[in-house]
């Protein structure tokens, strides 16, 4: 594992994780708030949205190509958007302005939906060049213009587009000798102090790379995993991020003042494979979607394991948090479970 140093490894083997006597004092694992059925296809993407009139919505993208819109009040699907020709929907994101939804599909299309006033029509779409599983990322403030990062044409490239004009700002391509493999997951963000957008990308070789978008420069690269990085999330306030891979470990890394990434620790999991890692918006806890059918919850500050949620009967593909603290997990078993753990005050 390259330059990683294990400053903290929490034992996770069954024999170690909890003494029987301790287990007696711990509360049993919680049950979900409710479970959404009816996607009729494995769920690959989830996104919470604070809908019109304060009615919270959940978008889910399925392998069957549909995007379902669920009302969290009625717990029913409100609508199903069919825009990807029956190909798997891998990524969903709403834009802060207007009621617009971005959906990425395996049909190599990224659709922009207009959902305002009950409409659900594709208003624009971006042609993607990559057939990989890499989810796109978006950086949008209040301005009409926003930035989109998508996997690029070359297998190791990331393309940055300015939207809604769809102008290609730049293509981030690692140097020839770096060979990180394909990008697997992306995260765009902007430090408060500077206007420069930064991109975090997890690559196939298990490394996480920080790109300076404007300079098209690889600022830092750190090898966190031995397997491809499947998901990452970043907490700009703490300048710390977490990534999960196809392997058995979560890695926590941090960014110092000179924009150098540094591994702060790894956390062994019982079973390999993390599809997505998400930190709750209030940055108290984080959740991982496990290929082992389980959702794991950790305290973000200490990485203390808090819960292992074993509800699904197949791999969990995605996890998402609402600002209200609700946690949603979508699984290959076609179900979406909604949980409320450690609700924020």
């Amino acid at each position, binding site marked *: 594992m390259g330059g990683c140093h294990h*400053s*903290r490894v929490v034992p*996770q083997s*069954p024999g170690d*994780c*909890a*003494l*029987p*006597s301790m*287990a*007696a004092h*711990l*509360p*049993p*694992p*919680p049950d979900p708030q409710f479970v959404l059925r009816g996607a009729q296809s494995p769920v690959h993407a989830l996104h919470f949205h604070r809908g019109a009139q304060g009615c919270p919505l959940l978008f889910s993208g399925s392998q069957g190509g549909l995007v379902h819109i669920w009302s969290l009040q009625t717990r029913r699907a409100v609508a199903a958007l069919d825009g990807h020709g029956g190909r798997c929907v891998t990524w969903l994101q709403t834009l802060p302005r207007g009621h617009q939804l971005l959906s990425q599909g395996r049909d190599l299309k990224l659709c922009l939906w207009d959902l305002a006033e009950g409409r659900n029509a594709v208003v624009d779409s971006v042609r993607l060049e990559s057939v990989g599983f890499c989810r796109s990322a978006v950086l949008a403030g209040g301005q009409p213009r926003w930035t989109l990062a998508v996997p690029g044409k070359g297998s190791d490239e990331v393309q940055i587009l300015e939207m809604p004009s769809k102008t290609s700002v730049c293509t981030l391509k690692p140097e020839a000798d770096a060979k990180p493999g394909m990008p697997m997951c992306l995260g765009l963000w902007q430090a408060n102090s500077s206007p420069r957008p930064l991109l975090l990308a997890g690559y196939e070789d298990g490394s996480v790379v920080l790109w300076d978008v404007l300079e098209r420069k690889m600022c830092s690269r750190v090898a966190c995993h031995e397997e491809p990085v499947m998901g990452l999330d970043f907490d700009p306030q*703490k300048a*710390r991020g977490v990534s999960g891979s196809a392997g058995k470990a979560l890695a*926590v890394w941090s960014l110092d003042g000179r924009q150098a990434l540094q591994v*702060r*620790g790894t956390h062994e999991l*019982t*079973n390999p494979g993390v599809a997505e890692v998400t930190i709750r918006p209030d*940055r*108290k*806890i984080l959740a991982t979607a496990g290929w*082992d*059918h*389980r959702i794991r919850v950790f*305290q973000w*500050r*200490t*990485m*203390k*394991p*808090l*819960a*292992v949620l*074993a509800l699904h009967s197949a791999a969990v593909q995605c996890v998402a948090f609402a600002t209200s603290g609700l946690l949603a997990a979508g699984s290959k078993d076609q179900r979406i479970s909604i949980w409320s753990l*450690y609700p924020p005050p």
Partner: protein
Amino acid sequence: MDPARSEVRLAVQEAVHTLSSSEDGGHIFSTLGSLKRYLGDTESPALPREKEEFATVHFSAVLRCLAGVLSPGWLELLPDSRLEELWASFFLEGPADQAFLVLMESIEGTAGPSFRLMRMAQLLAEFLRAGRMAALMEAQCRQRMLPGFPLLRETLLSGVVGLPDRLGNRLQRGNLAEFLPQNYFPLLGKEAVRVLQAVVDSLRGGLDCSVSFVSQVLGKVCVHGRRQETLGVLVPGLTALTEGSCLWQRVSWRLVEQVPDQAMEAVLTGFVEAAPGPEVLSRLLGNLVVKNKKAQFVMTRKLLFLQYRLTTPELQSLLGYLAMDSQRRPLLLQVLKELLDTWGSSSAVRHTPLPQQRYISKAVLICLAQLGDADLRDSQDELLAGMMVGVKCRLDSSLPAVRCLGMIVAEVISARLHTEGPPLRFQYEEDELSLEMRALASPRPAGDGVLETPAETLDSGVPQAPLEGSDSELDSDDEFVPYDMSGDRELKSGKAPAYVRDCMEALTTSEDAERWEAALRALEGLVCRSPEATREVSVELAKVLLHLEEKTCVEGFEGLRQRALVAVTVTDPARVAEYLTSQFYALNYSLRQRMDILDVLTLAAQELSRPGRRRRAPQDGHPRPGSCCSPPLATSRPGSAAAPDWRVEVEERIRSKTRRFSKGTPRLVPTGGPNAFNSVAGYFFFPLIQHFDRPLVTFDLLGDDQLVLGRLTHTLGAMMYLAVNTSVAVPMGKALLDFVWALRFHVDAYVRRGLLSAASSVLLSVPAQRLLEDLPGELLEARSWLADVAEKDQDEDCRVLALRALLLLERLKDKLLPPSP
């Protein structure tokens, strides 16, 4: 005739006459006053020659006379107790030995409680308080040996040492606090220090002195069992005084050397117990062990091999003392060799009690820590050879504690002696004992006895940098309570077969490790759910499970296999038990498999005999850790109210001897029902008990495989106990008693324990009436055997078990006797 002598004699005669006849206080007073001249200390002391004459020849007579005239009226002849003071001063100021003897004599000669007795006793207490005992001993130290003297000395000695006994006998309830042993002997110790101080002073002044009387007193006190009280005062005093003073040290050495041989053991034991460490012991004893044969015997043999009462620090003192001087070190090496011989002797392993074995082991480790590499080099091979022999016979033992001692000591020895090459490593449980033993092996830093704990240094060495490092944020208060995560196990792919037959096939033929493991995990549940399907293949399945080997590392393999086997046995008890018991005595099984068979049979029997078991839902997958419950056996059974404590007791024993991987789930409502073990107990029990005395090529229960025999005895005992309230219990009990009788003198303690608990099981399970009618002879024999074991067995557990069985027998008698109206 010497004029001085005759003058003294005349004066004394006159005084004696006056004392015995006169009633005139003034006259008596002046007569005594004139006698007092001879004791010195007055304005006109007598001539030295006269004094000496008085002290040696007449003093005792005068004192006797004074003691004889004592009565309340006599003392009040003069007011203000002036006469009484003068009277007492003769006893307190004259030569102490004579005063002491006369005091003792008159106290013992006075019959019954009386004024005189009490007054004399008070005077003796005053005598003690005034420190006259030191004067007495000091005088003995200064005197030259005179002919006829030993007798007086002997009298004095027994008087000094026996004072508390004699006074106690004489005064009975009126005894004074000064004469109680707990007060008197510390005083004696203090006085001995004072005497030694005087001896040292006079040696400094160039006068010759002997401490032999003090030595004799000391010896006699210690022989009388009062060494703690006396040496508890004397040794600390000597410790302080000998520090930095050669003269004091020589006096101390001399003191111990002069102790008579028969008292040497008691005195040395006392010194070892009272000395705070080897340095002090070395200062006080010098090279005594080299000079004195008896002391050498006591220190190098008796305290180490024939007794085992020293505590570990005392043992460290003793062996440290041997190590501290180059003259004594060869002795220590010799001791180490002999200790190792004993440690490794198979007879000692078998016949000495466990505490003694621990003692010897500790001594070996301490010796190793005390000896330097240079000392060990020459005899390295010999020691290693001794160790190897010992390890072998210890590992052969069936008692875990004995094995553990073997492993710990062997690890330490090999690390110490066999420095090249990898050290020996055994797997044993870390407990208090093993930690203590290994701490003993690390050499103590010179000067202080404080052992540094390695754990502390280890702890501080590991960097405990928290993940978040510097950011101690506001959110430090959100300590979320984690949920129970014990269910977080490795994910197995869902290849588990759904039918018993499929499981069997997967276990026998599958090359796919995951499928194999899934089949093993699913088997117990499947067997419980589908008893009919299981019965069709039960024996075959049992065969597969019995021969199952762990191909890949499967967590909890042993437990899974055992649970599955138990489930199969419970489902089809008669046929599977028949198969298993026949395999127990078959060729070509490993000891492990044979013991597995025994465990499975016990567990299955327990399951079958559990009341209300049919209502139990089949146990699935992983039992949650922490969901233990009390063993179902002991909870409820008809008639258990009669002897609940013994049920629990025996159950406890069975449980501690049986390897168990899972326990039944708690039942809320105990319900009555027939014992399902009833109809099949014979299949379990009789085949096992029949063939134990027929050795096979690979399996000899009465020979090397005594561990299995021990397990067999425990299994049979457990089955007997589980067969309570069954019709087959009586023949089972009879067979078991015969079995016990045949093996009762087995050398292995584990086997004997099994036999004893089996005997208890018989007493518990067979109805009392039937016991008396069918087995009276066996009972009588068992009784005498149990009494013998309870008294003489060297294994403590055996003694306790025998005692319990005896008590059960007693209860049986109570049960049979008609209740008295």
